[in-house]
C-alpha cells in the first residue's frame, strides 16, 4: 500500500494529504472571506454614502452575512420552467472550481502554501478562464434575454482583458525567471516589483477589476441595463454561490497582485501572513472603493480601452523590459 501511495504521490505530485487538508482549509477560507467581504462591502458602501449600513444584527452588524447566508440556504430552489436544466445546474458548480484551485498555489506566508507548483501562475490563469465559461453557461442556460446579453458581454470582456492581464504578469515572470509564485515572492526581497513596474501593476489591476466584473466594468450584471445580468434567473443557494465566487475572485485578483507586485508575505516585524492579508485587503478595499465611486463604462468603450490602450501599452512595456533586462 505504501508502495502504491509512493507511486501515486509521484504521479500526482507531492503530498496528497497535504493537498486535501489544504483544500479544506481553502474552502473554509473562501467562505469566511466571502462573508467578510459582503459585510465589508456594505460597510464601505455605507460609510462612503455617509450612512451606517449593517448594524442591527450582531455587533457592528457582523452577524449579518451569516444571517443572510442562512436565509439563502433556507430559500426555495426555484428552477424556472424554460431553462436548460443541465446547464442551469452546472453553471454555479463550474463557477466554483477555479476559485478553489487558484487558492491552492497562492503563498499566504512563508511555507503557508497548499502546494507550490512550478507552473503556479499558469494554474491561476488557466482556471480563471473557467469562470467566464460558467457565466456563459449560466447566461445560456437561463433562457433569458437579459442573461444572454450579460453572458455575451462577459465573454467578449474576458477575451479582451485576459491579454493585458497575461502580458503584465509575464513581465514579472521574465524578471524573475520562474513561474512559481513562491520564487516570485522571494525575488522581491530587496525591492517590490511595483517600483520597477508601476505601469504593469496598473494594467494588471485594471484588467483584474474587469475580469472580476466589478464596477466600472460590471457590464455582465449591469443592474440598470440588464436587471441582474447572467444570474437574473438564479435564486437561493445557487445565487449565493455566484456571489461567493465573485467575492473570492476579488480576493484572488488582489492576492495575485500582492504576490506579484507588492512583495507578497514579505514585510518587517509582523508575521508573513499578516502582511499578506493587510496588502491583499487593502487592494480589495480599493476595488470596493472603485465600485462606490464610478459610473459604469459602456460596452464598446470597455473593449476599445482594452484593445487600443491596455494591450499596446503592455506590449511596449514588455518589449522595453525585456530589452533592459538583456542589456
Amino acid at each position, binding site marked *: 500500500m505504501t508502495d502504491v501511495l509512493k507511486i501515486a504521490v509521484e504521479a500526482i505530485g507531492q503530498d496528497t494529504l497535504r493537498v486535501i487538508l489544504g483544500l479544506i482549509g481553502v474552502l473554509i477560507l473562501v467562505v469566511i472571506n466571502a462573508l467578510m467581504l459582503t459585510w465589508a462591502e456594505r460597510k464601505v458602501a455605507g460609510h462612503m454614502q*455617509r*450612512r451606517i449600513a449593517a448594524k442591527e444584527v450582531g455587533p457592528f452588524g457582523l452577524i449579518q452575512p451569516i444571517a443572510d447566508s442562512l436565509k439563502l440556504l433556507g430559500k*426555495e430552489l*426555484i428552477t424556472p420552467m424554460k431553462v436548460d436544466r443541465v446547464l442551469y445546474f452546472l453553471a454555479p458548480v463550474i463557477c466554483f472550481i477555479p476559485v478553489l484551485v487558484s487558492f491552492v498555489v497562492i503563498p499566504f506566508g512563508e511555507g503557508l502554501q497548499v502546494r507550490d507548483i512550478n507552473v503556479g501562475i499558469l494554474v491561476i490563469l488557466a482556471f480563471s478562464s473557467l469562470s467566464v465559461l460558467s457565466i456563459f453557461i449560466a447566461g445560456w442556460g437561463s433562457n433569458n434575454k437579459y442573461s444572454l446579453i450579460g453572458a455575451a458581454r462577459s465573454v467578449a470582456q474576458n477575451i479582451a482583458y485576459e491579454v493585458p492581464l497575461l502580458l503584465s504578469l509575464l513581465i514579472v515572470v521574465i524578471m524573475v525567471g520562474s513561474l512559481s509564485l513562491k520564487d516570485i515572492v522571494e525575488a522581491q526581497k530587496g525591492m517590490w516589483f511595483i517600483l520597477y513596474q508601476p505601469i504593469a501593476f496598473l494594467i494588471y489591476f485594471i484588467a483584474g477589476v474587469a475580469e472580476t466584473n466589478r464596477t466600472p466594468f460590471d457590464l455582465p450584471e449591469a443592474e440598470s441595463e440588464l*436587471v441582474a445580468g447572467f444570474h437574473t434567473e438564479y435564486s437561493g443557494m445557487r445565487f449565493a454561490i455566484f456571489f461567493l465566487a465573485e467575492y473570492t475572485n476579488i480576493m484572488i485578483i488582489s492576492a495575485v497582485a500582492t504576490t506579484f507586485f507588492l512583495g507578497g508575505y514579505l514585510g518587517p516585524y509582523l508575521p508573513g501572513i499578516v502582511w499578506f492579508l493587510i496588502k491583499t485587503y487593502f487592494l480589495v478595499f480599493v476595488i470596493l472603493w472603485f465600485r462606490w465611486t464610478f459610473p459604469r463604462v459602456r460596452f464598446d468603450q470597455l473593449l476599445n480601452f482594452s484593445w487600443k490602450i491596455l494591450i499596446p501599452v503592455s506590449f511596449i512595456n514588455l518589449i522595453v523590459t525585456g530589452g533592459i533586462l538583456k542589456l
Partner: protein
Amino acid sequence: MTFGLACCAIEMMATAMARFDIDRFGAGIFRATPRQSDLMIVAGTVTKKMAPTVVTLYEQMPSPKWVIALGNCAISGGPFVFEGQYNLVEGVDLLIPVDVYVPGCPPRPEGLLEGLMKIEEKITGKRRFPVPDKRW
C-alpha cells in the same frame, strides 16, 4: 426588490438613503430580479394593466416570501377610487397575499421601517426593537 410603481417609490428610495438607511437592518440590497428577493414592497397604484405583471413577479419569487403594501394606493386604491373607475385594482391584496400594510399618501420612511419591523415580528413572534413613542 425594487418595485416602485408610483409616488411611494420615491419615499421607498428615501428609506434606503443615508437619512434613514434601511441597510442597518440588513435589508439594504434592493435586487432587481424577483428570483433573488424575499420581500416585495408594492409601492404605488396597481392598475389593471399592471396586475398580471405583479402576480407573475410574486410567483417568480422563491418562498418564503413576504409582501408589504406601501401606501394607500397599494392597500385599497387610495384616493383614486371613485365610482365608475375602470383601471384600478382596489388593493393589491386582491391579487396577492399581503403581510403588512403601511398606509399613508405617501407614508413616511419611518412607516416603511415600522412595516419592516412588523414583518420581523410576524416571523419571529417578538419585537427586537424599541417602540418609539406614539404621537398623537
